[in-house]
């Protein structure tokens, strides 16, 4: 049961990344600007990261998931700064 749930979640992570890329491209092409496109992409990547974190069972997996999430938050915070 746990293996099945983990496998389903693992297969959904790349799907979310692809959906995020498609949405970011759509936002960029329809005049949402690079800032909006990046924010949308990072929202989807955050969703993928949350699913990834639910399968993390080792310290290495937890650290990777946490560092990735922090990097994304820092990138989006830096990108959304109004200069």
């Amino acid at each position: 049961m746990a293996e099945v749930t983990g496998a389903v979640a693992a297969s959904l992570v790349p799907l979310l990344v692809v959906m995020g890329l498609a949405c970011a491209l759509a936002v960029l092409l329809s005049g949402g600007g690079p800032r909006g496109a990046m924010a949308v992409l990072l929202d989807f990547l955050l969703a993928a990261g949350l699913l990834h974190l639910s399968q993390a069972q080792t310290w290495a997996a937890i650290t990777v998931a946490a560092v990735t999430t922090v990097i994304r938050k820092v990138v989006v915070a830096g990108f959304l700064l109004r200069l």
Partner: protein
Amino acid sequence: MVDLLPQEALQEVVDQLVRLVEAAGATVIFVGAVAAFVRFLRVALRRRGEQEFIAVRLFLGRFLALGLEFQLAGDVLRTAVAPSFQQIGQLAAIAAIRTALNFFLSREIEREGRAVGESRPAPPSGAANG
């Protein structure tokens, strides 16, 4: 002493509940992402303004926050049966990450929601009087 609820039985029940709650959280996140994907494409095709994109981001953010709440509930349930110190440590790390994410996400939703509310035109002054 009579063992009314053996540790193994309790662990089995809690494990099943944790799986159920975490699956619910993952489902909420995935369904929210799919719904937001469809809405993003629809808004992009109609070439609406930036405010519409922010509204869809808010929609996705609310789903992510709800999914995180489910996952945090699973973490709390797991603390009922965490036999080793290492498992407790891992649980604390995951719960800390999720709590921090939930905090920042909620703050972002609040900020963006306020920005969307401010950008909407105010209703005519006579409308409130009926």
